[in-house]
């Protein structure tokens, strides 16, 4: 087992809600509530969950573009939670991000060369070297060297996502957080980008945190998968173990609800009742107890801790205690 590249400990993000005459804080939206996990070098950790579960917030906190309320982020042995300004900028090259929206993630007023070279220029690489690197990166992600003279509006969604990936790679990062990186793309384009990302991972010895709502995509690209619900990590396991043998009732329902494109041998579908509760007013006890088909009395009072129930398989559920 290799060293942990990233350790996230008890990460929390609360957004205050204000009300009343004096705009007092009357509560918090608990977007991320006590999440811990690790990512090893060269590993891909998938994070799945439905909208509002806190997966993107988690990703952004790790990338240090959003301030955590509390908790600790240790990257490559260094605590980066409290770094700011110059110090933060000094470590940034080691972790980069690929974004969801291929249209919004590229500055429309900048040429492709400028976009990809920006991380290099900002970090003091000479123009000439930067251009060489841009050419290399463009070719590596399946575009042409001449494309660096063009502007984003001249590219399709899939091509823009390639440009976004090239930019993320510019500084030779160790970790890339991909936040719904293929969600906005058509299936045929999606597979192009997934294949590209898997190739690049091998070539550059990258680690990924791959955030998505699409269970099949996460399964395809990840080594380990974490399932989030209402700001909590409810299950975290090796991919095979998680998909073949989901332990948490939520994971089970989620897997059964995702439609598989085949007609024979479809699994029995578990239809959850109701909606996800509001993170501004989460239920007491287990966050899932309001919709859980296997709810017990203890679930309503006590929040289960994330515990290892099988080798490398962690679940937060009272069924296993």
């Amino acid at each position, binding site marked *: 087992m290799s060293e942990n590249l990233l350790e996230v400990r008890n990460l929390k993000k609360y957004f205050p809600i204000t009300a009343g005459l004096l705009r007092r804080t009357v509560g918090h939206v608990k977007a991320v509530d006590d999440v811990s996990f690790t990512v090893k070098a060269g590993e891909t950790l998938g994070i799945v969950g*439905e909208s509002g579960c806190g997966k993107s917030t988690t990703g952004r906190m790790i990338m240090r573009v959003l301030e955590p309320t509390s908790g600790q982020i240790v990257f490559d042995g260094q605590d980066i939670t409290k770094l700011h300004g110059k110090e933060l900028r000094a470590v940034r090259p080691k972790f980069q991000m690929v974004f969801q929206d291929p249209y919004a993630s590229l500055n429309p007023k900048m040429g492709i060369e400028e976009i990809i070279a920006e991380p290099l220029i900002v970090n003091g690489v000479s123009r000439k070297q930067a251009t060489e690197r841009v050419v290399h990166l463009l070719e590596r992600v399946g575009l042409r060297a001449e494309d660096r003279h063009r502007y984003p509006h001249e590219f*399709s969604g899939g091509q823009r996502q390639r440009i976004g990936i090239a930019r993320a790679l510019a500084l030779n990062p160790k970790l890339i957080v991909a936040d719904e990186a293929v969600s906005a793309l058509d299936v045929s384009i999606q597979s192009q980008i997934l294949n590209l990302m898997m190739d690049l991972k091998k070539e550059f010895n990258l680690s990924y945190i791959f955030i998505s709502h699409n269970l099949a995509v996460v399964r395809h690209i990840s080594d380990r998968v974490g399932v989030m619900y209402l700001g909590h990590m409810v299950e975290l396991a090796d991919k095979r173990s998680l998909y073949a043998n989901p332990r948490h009732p939520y994971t089970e329902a989620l897997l059964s609800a*995702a*439609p598989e494109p085949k*007609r024979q041998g*479809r699994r029995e579908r578990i239809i959850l009742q109701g909606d996800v509760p509001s993170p501004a007013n989460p239920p007491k006890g287990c966050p899932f107890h309001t919709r859980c088909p296997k709810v017990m009395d203890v679930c309503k009072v006590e929040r289960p801790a994330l515990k290892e129930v099988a080798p490398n398989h962690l679940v937060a559920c009272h069924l296993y205690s």
Partner: protein
Amino acid sequence: MAEPLLAIKNLKTYFISKDAEVRAVDGIDIEVQPRQVVCIVGESGCGKSMTSLSIMRLVPKPKGKIVDGEIWFNGRDLLKLSEDEMTDVRGNEISMIFQEPMTALNPVLTIGEQITEVLLRHRKLTKRQALAKAIEMLQFVGVPRASEIVHEYPHQLSGGMRQRVMIAMAMVCEPKLLIADEPTTALDVTIQAQVLELMKKMREDFDTSIILITHDLGVVADMADHVVVMYAGQVVESTDADSLFAEPTHPYTKGLLASIPSLEEEKDVLYSIPGTVPDAAAFPQGCRFADRCPIAQPSCREKMPELREVKPGHFVRCDLV
């Protein structure tokens, strides 16, 4: 087979502007039998949404125009009806639900007002009777607290609830045909499962035929009796759902299925269809998929293949299979 409920013949819907003619729908034929669920599947820009809007004669004016074809519904050609006659059909005999339940509901009218509006238009009811019917319908589609919800506004509901409201609104006049344009794309997986289940129930209880437009082959496998695969404004494959998944025949359909990661089986490398969809303002002369097709021959680029029956009931637009 019985007389089809809906028969689209050689429908062509173009967007005509000063400098371009975009052939969004370019000569499609689709039949829908009573009580049948027909899925139209394809990637963005393939013309599937324009097909549905053409059936409703709601193609955005002034640029969009149905330039040719017939749409036979219940013994009448919808394209020959006057605008007044067509408004009697909409919401009454054919109704429609859309992708974004948030934007598809009027934010300043209560849920009750929006549902009763349909009843008051098509049925001779008093306001009070209409409201009672609306509440009944909301209960039927599984909206809790229906008698209170009718006085609330769309922004007070969750995404899943809004889509249920849309379905209630569409079904309240018990139409013979429901057109659902990506009804679950904006929803989470667990909510998607609820809504798909509800649509099945609607078909059972009201004997309604459904045209389901989606890009998700998983949803197709779950819902469809018959599948129509569209590519670049044309139907490339049309067959019953079982044979589509058992023997996909058109290279595009095959590629599409192969490029989707699976929940259940390991795929090392996903197949990916190279390239991107051709520009709808300048389609190539021959087969529109030829540039991306792994089995393309020079002849494919010269002549447009016809949609031909390769097996009983299984139509494919490819000369090489």
